[in-house]
């Protein structure tokens, strides 16, 4: 028996065993389901769901299908993940840099924040923010408006809604601004390479981004109005705000808890990234006459990012998966709406749990692919 065959046989056997184990579970489940008269299938997805959901980004009520309820849950999960990732990144970068501050007070408070928030179980933090907020927030009728138009109440944060007219024209003007910025940037780079002149690209870009859309207001017929929430009496002692945009307290508490928790880990990634760059780099950059800003932008950050990105990707994935704790505080995410209510109403445990698992897997893999692409882009390019 030659080496090649000997190498292949154990692998073949491993594959066979894995296939057999999966086959066994499928077979077993099939038999047990047959015994109890349960049929496997995805036909239920097109049935009417007949339950309502508190908060949805798309048009939905109980007369839509289970498939649409799935989409509602998925979008709500993505919403929390998206907002959570943005807030935790901003907070994480600030705190990570603060931990390196020469100022003792700033450095210590940042360290305290990190140690405090990352060492308390996330579910407890979610409960804390939710029930603490519910206890602390006023009833709608007792609310003092912030800036006259924001109303923070126990039933949610009510903010003015934008009512746009000719929104498409505004959108085109922003697109035009972005295209011209790219053109100018390219021109500026060529100019610098050819003649050594530097154009103030940043100021020009900001100017373009403000002036072009502004023009559409003046001559393009674009207008923006605000629909301000107004209080409505439901009965003698209960009120609600109507009109405007209502953000449920569940969403606020969940996003806050996820962002504060994940920010601690991102802060540590940022600190590790910056401390991973040797002091010599900074000194060398300064010695060739770069300004402190340029040192950070052109020398430190590009190298630090290579250390920061891979562990930060993990944190983004964690945040997305942790968002499934939403079920505890009634935020209608994928787990609550689909793997919760829909599973209960249809009884299709195997189908729904597999769909949910595949969905989380796809979300995580997409984030992973995106971050890996970015990581490759900023990695050292050897020529």
């Amino acid at each position, binding site marked *: 028996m030659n080496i090649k065959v000997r190498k292949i*046989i*154990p692998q073949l056997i491993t594959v066979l065993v894995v296939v057999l184990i999966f086959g066994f579970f499928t077979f077993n489940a099939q038999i047990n389901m047959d015994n*109890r008269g349960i049929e496997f299938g995805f036909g239920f997805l097109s049935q009417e769901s007949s339950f*309502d959901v508190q908060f949805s980004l798309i048009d939905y009520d109980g007369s839509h299908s289970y498939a649409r309820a799935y989409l509602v849950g998925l979008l709500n999960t993505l919403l929390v993940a998206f907002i959570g990732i943005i807030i935790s990144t901003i907070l994480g970068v600030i705190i990570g840099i603060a931990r390196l501050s020469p100022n003792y007070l700033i450095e210590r408070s940042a360290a305290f924040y990190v140690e405090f928030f990352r060492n308390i179980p996330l579910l407890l933090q979610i409960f804390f923010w939710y029930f603490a907020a519910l206890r602390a927030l006023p009833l709608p009728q007792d609310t003092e408006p912030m800036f006259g138009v924001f109303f923070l109440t126990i*039933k949610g944060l009510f903010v003015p809604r934008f009512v746009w007219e000719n929104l498409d024209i505004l959108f085109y003007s922003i697109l035009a601004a972005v295209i011209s910025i790219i053109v100018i940037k390219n021109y500026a780079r060529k100019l610098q390479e050819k003649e050594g002149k530097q154009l103030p690209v940043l100021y020009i870009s900001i100017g373009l981004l403000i002036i072009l859309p502004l023009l559409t207001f003046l001559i393009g017929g674009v207008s923006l109005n605000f629909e301000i929430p107004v209080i409505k009496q439901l009965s*003698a*002692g209960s009120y609600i705000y109507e009109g405007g945009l209502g953000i449920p307290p569940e969403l606020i508490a969940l996003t806050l808890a996820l962002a504060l928790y994940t920010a601690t880990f991102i802060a540590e990634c940022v600190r590790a990234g910056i401390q991973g760059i040797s002091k010599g780099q900074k000194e060398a950059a300064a010695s060739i006459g770069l300004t402190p800003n340029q040192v950070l932008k052109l020398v430190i950050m590009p190298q630090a990012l290579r250390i920061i990105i891979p562990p930060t990707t993990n944190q983004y994935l964690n945040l997305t998966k942790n968002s499934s704790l939403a079920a505890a*505080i009634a935020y209608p995410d994928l787990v609550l709406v689909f793997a919760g209510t829909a599973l*209960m109403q249809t009884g299709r445990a195997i189908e729904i749990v597999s769909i949910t698992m595949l969905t989380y897997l796809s979300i995580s893999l997409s984030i992973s692919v995106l971050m890996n692409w970015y990581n490759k882009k900023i990695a050292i390019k050897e020529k």
Partner: protein
Amino acid sequence: MLKVIKSLTSFVAMVAVLFVFTTETMAAKKSKTLKNTQKKGFVRCGVSQGLPGFSNADASGNWTGVDVDVCRAVAAAVLGDANKVKFTPLSAKERFTALTSGEIDILSRNTTWTLSRDADIGLTFVGVNFYDGQGFMVRKSSGITSTSQFKSGISACTNIGTTTELNMRDFFNSKGISYEPVAFEKADEVVAAYDAGRCDTYTTDKSGLAAQRTKLSNPDDHIVLPETISKEPLGPVVRQGDSVWEDIVRWSLNVMIEAEEYGITSGNADSMKTSENPAIKRLVGAEGELGAAFGLDNDWSLRIIKQVGNYGESYKRNIADTGILPDRGPNQLWTKGGILYVPPAR
């Protein structure tokens, strides 16, 4: 070479083991559940995570309630001891999966009997131990005294995975009222959120409202509205496919109800053996061979009555005396104006 042989043998062994397991599951048995229960020495019973009067654990872990008593009755019948029950607290979401997957053998957890649950997902409802209906609880300070005063924009706290969610939609839709459903996974969180003022109303089965009301910080500040918006017959459930076990659970419940009808209590059960009435004598095992059909001895029903009591005793002990629902309402015997009516045990 040796390595290859080794891995080949382990592979063959693995296949053999899988084969044995598979044939084991394929073999149909008459009452696997009864056999397993007697082998284990306890009844595996799924209950709620804490609903006073129905299934609730005290500080030392003793479970009480009318739903708990159904499982105790089965344990008394098949094992001879009403205390040989292992209770598994389940959320509304988990309950059916726990039953169909075989983690528990009886689900006695204020579960509504509906067509789709009975027919579609591998379950069999064996009877009704509590006739209920969905209602609403509101704060007294809201001034609401009837559901007709509900207005669009009202927020309603409830549990996910219950018929409540569906009934609520039907109710508000038929009235043309838009509402905000706030659905939690666990009942304790619903209570906490409603108590804090997150919702204007708390909706679930009326018995549940009465029970959960006792957990609020100021129970007297809240009232349950008089309207009932649905039929909620609550009862124990078993897995589909074991008709002997199904019969045992069904008749354990029926015996409790019929015992009340004939005035047999835990106190007088033994003396009833000498009764003139053959129906009573059958219930206390002094006549007939009722247990044989299930593969049980003839004292199975006597043990239920002696150890758990009849339905009326169970109701009084768990629901009336605890102040949850002192009035039996529809859960009174048919002979006394209620709708509790069970087939004769003969």
